């Protein structure tokens, strides 16, 4: 294809000026966009009204189509189930047996737990969910891992609230519209969740790796305490996430690097439970009195 000649507007001053103005607008626009990016980096909650409105506007597409996706998904697994029925039945029976035994044990432990808590006068932290809703979509290109919820500020959802499913922690809310909200998944690179190892209570940080897995970072140097198959739960440190929510399962340990998989798979989720911030005071800015006394202590 020959290069088009329309880029050179000839001797017309007006056409030349129009082209020049186009470039001025384009370059100015890039500078403006970079400024917007700086604003977004400094204040991630900026333009929340605009972004919330956009989120609401695309909500019908996401929410309406989700049932179609689930239906198509269901057909595939339904056919598979039909052929595997015999062997699956036997395996399930076996599993039921073993789990029944475990349930009895768990009940006994639960009772004992209750008794001990009563002895210590510890109130069980009751977590009433703010909303129970669906995950209706996610970003699918780009390095960020964000998902969309089908309920927003109209249901009481606000930025910063943790989101979980029955299986485990999903992430936290970062943007809210009126009827939809965007959440930062635990596998996003910007997510860091304080966790502890169920086996022995070793504290760690679960940082997203961006590709659906989680990197585990221990707080102390030395031997890597993780083993394949270890389960991590939130520790409650930091006050955002409530303690004892399952987060991840360790899938590989390579020297210092530990890779884990989130226990709640957002792709297969039906329901998401939005919880209140565990200790609201933890995310608030310091009061003026505390601030001055802290500054005084530093000097």
């Amino acid at each position, binding site marked *: 294809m020959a*290069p088009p000649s329309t880029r050179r507007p000839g001797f017309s001053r007006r056409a030349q000026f129009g082209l020049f103005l186009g470039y001025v607008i*384009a370059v100015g626009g890039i500078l*403006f966009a970079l400024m917007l990016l700086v604003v977004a980096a400094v204040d991630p909650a900026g333009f929340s009204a605009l972004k919330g409105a956009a989120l609401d506007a695309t909500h019908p597409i996401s929410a309406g189509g989700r049932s179609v996706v689930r239906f198509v998904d269901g057909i595939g697994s339904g056919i598979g189930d039909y052929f595997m029925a015999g062997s699956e039945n036997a395996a399930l029976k076996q599993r039921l047996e073993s789990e029944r035994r475990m349930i009895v044990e768990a009940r006994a432990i639960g009772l004992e737990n209750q008794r001990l808590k009563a002895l210590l006068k510890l109130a069980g932290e009751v977590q009433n969910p703010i909303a129970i809703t669906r995950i209706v979509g996610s970003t*699918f*290109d780009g390095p960020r*891992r964000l998902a969309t919820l089908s309920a927003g500020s109209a249901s009481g959802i606000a930025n910063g609230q943790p989101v979980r499913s029955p299986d485990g922690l999903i992430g936290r809310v970062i943007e809210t519209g009126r009827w939809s909200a965007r959440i930062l998944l635990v596998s996003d*690179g910007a997510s860091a969740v304080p966790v502890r190892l169920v086996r022995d209570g070793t504290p760690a940080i679960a940082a997203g790796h961006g590709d659906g897995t989680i990197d585990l970072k221990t707080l102390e140097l030395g031997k890597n305490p993780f083993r394949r198959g270890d389960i991590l739960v939130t520790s409650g440190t930091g006050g955002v996430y409530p303690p004892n929510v399952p987060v991840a399962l360790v899938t590989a340990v390579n020297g210092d690097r530990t890779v884990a998989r989130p226990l709640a798979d957002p792709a297969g989720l039906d329901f998401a439970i939005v919880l209140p911030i565990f200790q609201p005071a933890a995310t608030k800015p310091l009061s003026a009195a505390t601030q001055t006394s802290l500054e005084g202590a530093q000097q």
Partner: protein
Amino acid sequence: MRIAASGRDTAFRGPGRPWVPLLTTLGASLLQALPVVVTTPVVPDFAFLVLLSWRLLRPEMWQAYVALPLGLFNDLVAGHPLGQSMALWTATFLACDLLDSRSGWRDYWLDWLFAALVVALYTIGEWRVAWWMGSRIPFEVVLPQMILGIFCYPVVARLVVSLDRWRLTR
């Protein structure tokens, strides 16, 4: 179209469906609102590929600043930080203008080569912006998306060519 100083309409009239390029680009942005949950970045950015295909196919159609509002729409729909697509898409258009003014004859392979370069730079840009926004991930994570994007370009370009043919028929 009127030829300068001729006083009458000659050659072809305005194209039959002038909104097709704009609407297909906006539609490709809206793909990101589809109810699909993906946990690994492997799906290429189709909005960008459609935009790039239109730009390489019809260099005279859009001036560089047209990418600004299109990028804003993409940012809002996809949940990118505001300004990411605005900056990257407009920079892409300026690079395309540079290519148009420097290159002579172009063919399919040269277009693909250029598209591959642009897609690679675009992915690096996205990764960099995510880095500034606090998402510190290694570049290998976005590599599959970049490679898939490069190989999806011919498919998208073929689609855009057929759309263009439909646009210009009456």
